[in-house]
């Protein structure tokens, strides 16, 4: 069963509906002591890095998420959810992240005076093959809406980039952890296909 982490920030319903549409069992999880009930866990995210971390801490999520990851089960972060996996963010002042993936989260500075936030449909450039994107062509567009981007310390953690006034990290993979800066739950059939790949993944590469 898929668990969606509820830490009281924003809209979890869209993510839940997307998994329901795929016909997989899914549940909103508000209790950190229950994470091991799930085969797959998802950290969605809307709002700012700092506020989201404060909420996760208030509800005692960080240690529960670390314990879950230590079991080797798949964890997916979407948008801010992926950003929270990193060591540190700077949105509305510096704050520590979950520290699951080494690196930083910083404001985007695209070249050519492109707009920030980066809003709309854009394609990926995969760095290597991974079960998450198996059989999916690179030129498919997904929906992005964000002002900050992840800067992993390890090149190998970068699964795919996206070009917006320079390449930035659009997807990460580190052991049993994957993340997407775009919103698969808002990317219509193309996005649902990726969520399906996640549900079929056992956390091993």
């Amino acid at each position, binding site marked *: 069963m898929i668990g969606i982490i509820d830490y009281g920030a924003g809209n979890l319903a869209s993510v839940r509906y997307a998994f329901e549409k795929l016909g997989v069992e899914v549940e909103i999880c508000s209790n950190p002591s229950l994470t091991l009930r799930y085969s797959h866990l998802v950290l969605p995210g809307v709002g700012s890095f700092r506020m989201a971390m404060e909420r996760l801490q208030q509800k005692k999520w960080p240690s529960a998420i670390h314990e879950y990851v230590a079991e080797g089960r798949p964890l997916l972060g979407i948008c801010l959810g992926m950003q929270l996996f990193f060591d540190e963010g700077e949105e509305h002042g510096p704050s520590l992240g979950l520290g699951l993936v080494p690196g930083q989260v910083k404001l985007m500075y695209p070249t050519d005076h492109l707009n920030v936030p980066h809003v709309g449909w854009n*394609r990926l450039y995969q760095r290597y093959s991974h079960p998450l994107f198996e059989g999916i062509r690179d030129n*498919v567009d997904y929906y992005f809406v964000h*002002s900050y981007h992840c800067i992993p310390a390890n090149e190998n953690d970068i699964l795919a980039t996206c070009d917006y006034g320079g390449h930035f990290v659009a997807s990460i993979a580190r052991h049993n952890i994957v993340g997407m800066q775009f919103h698969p739950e808002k990317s219509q059939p193309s*996005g649902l296909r990726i969520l399906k790949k996640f549900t079929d993944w056992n956390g091993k590469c």
Partner: protein
Amino acid sequence: MLKKRVIPVLLLRDGRMVKGKRFSDYRDTGSPQTAVRIYSAQDADELVLLDIQATTNGHRALLDILHLAAEECFMPLTAGGGVTSLDNIRELLLAGADKVLVNTATVTRPSLIKQAAESFGNQCIVAGIDYRADDNGVPKVWIRSGHEPTSLDPVDHARHLADLGAGEILLNSIDRDGMMGGYDLKMADAVAHAVSVPVIASGGAGNFMHLAEALSNTAVSAVACASLFHFGDNNPIRARSYLRNQGIQMRNLK
């Protein structure tokens, strides 16, 4: 490369979908539930749902259609109409909106934009600017669904709202609304150059050439349209293929 967007706008009134000319003479254009499902099946890039009666009737009708859209359609949704508080914004986001449009309150309570950007992130706050020419032909911002004039210049207002934290600007020409004679390219370009956030041009699209003009000849990121899709057999699939043939980068679905 980021693709250009074509965004259908659904105006809601009394739970029905309507479309007017210059913000009056509204005609019934059908069931919003049906429209949402059709636009989803046609893979529209995004949808904007605006309740023009929310100020008097509250958000019930808008919340209902948002719930349906979020449950059945896995696409980006912007909701607006009568948004005056952080609670309004939170409620619409929880119902399934990805972005919330604030219009009248950008003039009557601009601090809302700043607070909302801090609470929810600037990427989910869209500032709506409706404008029309005054008696001397000078464009001014209008509020309350085009019922009340202000002395504000649309370009200055857009700049101010982007500085406050609006993540996107929906710029709507009242004079061109529903007239299907093309967008106000000059104003769209002026605003898009004045701010560093994405601008959506709205008001006036009557054919696909109008969409191409705005997307090729101005700095806007997206075009919104209503009449174009309501009246006649045009749809987002045809729009996308026309624009692609014009050399405009549009989304690849597979």
